[in-house]
């Protein structure tokens, strides 16, 4: 790849063009003409992936605000995987539910653009704009089934609280700007590093406000309230997308902001995040126990996973940063696949996402049940799956930073979380199919391919993680 000033934005551009292409294609589509719009999107995402690979280790930077360092590229790759899987699952759902295909895929792709931007941004303002791009796209995706009042309600809650939180986030940016005179992370970092540790209340307020913004996006307690409702109301495939993509992007930015710009103040923010992490892990797992809707349950589970990721952030050492990346990838693949199963089991009229809808699934659809089980076990952190290595990594980060307490709380909550994952397994394997239920849907084609691919990745990451661990480790070596 040539060295041009625009290198760093190439992955993003690929996706943007794919999105635009999708919109164009939709515009020129005949009334009942079927078009592989998703395929276009996948092409764009693959382009992004290829360009990210080419950019690897080059530390490219464009406009001074977008840095395609390995860290950002790793997250980009993760997001690409999330995007591809989402599109594959969506291809089934869009046709089945009669969603506006062009807008749908375009929004997904724009959301991915926002996510990539957020992950590679080096400027608080750009992060804010990226955040808004992905948020607005996801709000709309959440409510894309306009005939479903629950979806609309979910979109509304998500939107309202999202806007509310972004106001706080913006306020935080304002204070940061006021104190340091810039929104560029490197400049802020330099400024703060030069400061004596005199605790300026303004910078603490700024940290607090930024924390609120990020905590909202990664649904840390007590900013998590939107999560269960939005996840439950949204179409399952969208839930899978937002529970992974948004979280990954937000975490990338979170990590970058707090471990580069605000690194000198880690003494100040670490205890706060410690509290958030503990509350998040505990509340996420505990309340998950009481859920009977699988989507809602997985929502709480994803809250808890946010908590584990925070643990990596607190550890704030090299292990921790790489662990966040690996965990994000493992979690993303697993969660997308899990929601994919739910999405594939739904019909146009019924979401089929209650626990009892899974009863006896094994007897009717053994393969689907097995794939779901693998996902759940991975989420629960059992070997030999990706989730296990991820947890291993995160907790070794905590331990090597001396946070034994966090590690212990983390592992214990993960045991509790296994309980509710197992409830699904129990339903699928150990209960007979509720006679009142219709036979589960047939799954084939692209959806199944996507599922199997995810499972392969889950096992690959669980058994032979070396390569990816290397990448994760390289990712953090280039920056901060």
């Amino acid at each position, binding site marked *: 790849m040539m060295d041009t000033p625009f290198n760093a934005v190439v992955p993003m551009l690929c996706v943007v063009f794919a999105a635009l292409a999708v919109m164009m294609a939709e515009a020129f589509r005949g009334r009942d003409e079927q078009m592989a719009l998703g395929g276009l999107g996948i092409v764009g995402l693959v382009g992004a992936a290829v360009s990210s690979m080419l950019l690897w280790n080059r530390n490219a930077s464009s406009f001074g605000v977008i840095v395609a360092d390995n860290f950002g590229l790793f997250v980009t790759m993760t997001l690409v995987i999330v995007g591809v899987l989402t599109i594959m699952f969506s291809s089934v759902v869009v046709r089945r539910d009669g969603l506006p295909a062009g807008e749908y895929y375009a929004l997904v792709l724009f959301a991915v653009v926002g996510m990539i931007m957020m992950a590679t941004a080096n400027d608080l303002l750009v992060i804010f704009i990226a955040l808004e791009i992905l948020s607005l796209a996801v709000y709309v995706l959440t409510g894309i089934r306009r005939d479903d009042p629950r979806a609309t309600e979910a979109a509304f809650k998500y939107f309202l609280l999202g806007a509310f939180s972004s106001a706080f986030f913006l306020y935080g940016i304002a204070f940061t700007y006021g104190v340091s005179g810039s929104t560029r992370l490197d400049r802020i970092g330099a400024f703060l590093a030069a400061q004596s540790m005199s605790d300026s209340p303004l910078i603490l307020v700024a940290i607090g406000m930024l924390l609120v913004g990020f905590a909202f996006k990664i649904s840390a307690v007590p900013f998590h309230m939107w999560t269960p409702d939005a996840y439950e109301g949204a179409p399952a495939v969208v839930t899978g997308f937002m529970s992974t993509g948004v979280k990954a992007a937000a975490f990338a930015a979170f990590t970058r902001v707090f471990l580069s710009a605000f690194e000198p103040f880690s003494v100040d923010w670490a205890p706060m995040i410690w509290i958030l992490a503990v509350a998040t892990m505990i509340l996420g797992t505990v309340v998950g126990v009481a859920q009977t809707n699988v989507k809602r349950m997985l929502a709480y589970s994803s809250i808890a996973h946010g908590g584990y990721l925070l643990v990596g952030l607190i550890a704030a050492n090299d292990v921790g940063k790489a662990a966040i990346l690996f965990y994000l990838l493992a979690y993303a693949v697993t969660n997308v696949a899990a929601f994919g199963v739910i999405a594939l089991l739904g019909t146009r009229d019924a979401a089929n996402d209650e626990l009892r809808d899974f009863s006896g699934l094994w007897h009717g659809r053994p393969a689907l049940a097995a794939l779901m089980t693998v996902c759940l*076990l991975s989420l629960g952190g*059992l*070997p*030999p799956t990706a989730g*296990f290595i991820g947890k*291993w990594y995160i*907790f*070794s980060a905590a*331990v*090597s930073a001396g946070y*034994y307490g966090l*590690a*212990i709380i983390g*592992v*214990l909550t*993960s*045991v509790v979380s*296994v*309980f509710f994952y*197992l409830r699904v*397994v*129990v339903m699928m*394997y*150990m209960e007979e199919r509720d006679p009142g239920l219709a036979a589960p849907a047939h799954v084939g084609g692209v959806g199944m391919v996507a599922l199997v691919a995810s499972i392969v990745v889950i096992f690959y990451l669980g058994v032979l*993680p*070396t390569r990816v*661990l*290397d990448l994760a*480790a390289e990712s953090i070596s280039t920056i901060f």
Partner: protein
Amino acid sequence: MLLTLSWLVPLVGALLLLLVGNADGRRDGMIRWLALGVSLIAFAVTLGVWAAFDPASAEFQFVERHSWIPQFGIDYFVGIDGISLLLVVLTGFLTPIALLSSWGSIERKVKEFSIFILALEAAMVGVFISLDLFLFYVFWDAMLIPMYFLIGIWGYDRRVYAAIKFMLYTMAGSVLMLVAILGMAYLHSAATGSYTFDLLKLYSLDIAPQTQMWFFLAFTLAFAIKVPLFPFHTWLPDAHVQAPTAGSVILAGVLLKMGTYGLLRFSFPLFPEAAAYFAPWLALLAVIGIIYGALVAMVQPDMKKLVAYSSVSHLGFVVLGICAMNTQGMQGAVYQMLAHGVSTGGLFLMVGMLSDRRHTRLIAEFGGLKTVMPQFTAAFLIMTLASIGLPGLNGFVGEFLIMLGAFRWAPAFAVAAGLGVILSAVYMLWMFQRVFYGPVTHEANETLTDLQPREWAGVLPLCAMALVMGVFPTIFLKPMEASVDALVLRMQATQTVQVEIPVDRRPDDERRLTTVTERVARR
């Protein structure tokens, strides 16, 4: 390569079975034979390992090491010494029997059942051969999954509760071990600059006593739950009772041993000072378990529960032997693990046969079976006696050695543990009496069939093994001797344990003892 084969064979077998199409159960028969064949091959492999094993060496043998996750210093690192060797063989031995036991009782989803059993075997063997803590933990946790399904799908009426309880209880203990493992790796990296989970390297790690205490507790909790040591035992009756026969056999035969094996391999040698500090407390729990388990077993109305509680009692002996930290205690402990695997495995197997015939396990539902099933009764009697610890059968050797070891260490524990000897006779014979003696009280029992040839195929090896282990224990004691001695030395070298020198010694003992003391002195 042989060691890797020993866990890979069942795993590959399981994967192969996965490929066999069996939607409507037409190929059940073929699958059963396939699974049995695979497990027999695996058994043959373990026997091959034994044959090639050098009993004179205390070193780990058949060592294989491949870099796996170099970032953390995680290797695929396996090897066995005399202690794990026998447990691996035990696993290989019991799995075909477990599979055989399912032929009569598992009617649905035979394929999946066989797959889970084979996967379970792979994980169990993996646990015993791992010399890398990470690898060990992977197998340790992976083992839960097939067992969970075995209990949950093919178990009895409260199977789901039991399965979840089993899984969560065990996990709750093992995750703390996970933290401790990570802590060890971190300490190693702090000391030497590199992460490692290599057990042998960690053995030589110098850990501050305070830290040792915490790590020891974390490790030991995991193992204590698995053993299960009083008061962490309540998952056991549920899991045992609800599990299908094959599950119970493996659960009692192998799974519980993973806990005591863990104590021997990890808790004690990794943290010798903490072990010395906590040993009396552990032993106290063990002794309570011995008596308590026996007393509670005595009043159980359910045969499986009775045998389950008896396991609590028997395993208490094992822990006591380990705590004694001398040759007899530790060898006895390992021996008792094997013996318990055979005799309790056999008991569960046969209780399962009764349960298959009558669909109940309540003692009160039986009576006078000797009249209708004389062969079965005879086999059951042998297992009962083995469980009681009659000399000449397998149970005695282990128990006696343990009590000997414990007596040399702290006589009070041995004295208390000995009560278990009395009580085991009480509860086992009482059950035996109520089930087999007396007139036939239930009509349904009058038509029960005696042992079938296929069932004999499962029962006979166990009976034979019980007898062989009782009459020729040196076959099993010899291979582990060097390893246990090395372990004992390691434990004693780090602490000032008074090695009691007998007043009278035979010349060869003299030599042995002096070499031991010299080696201690040289450290």
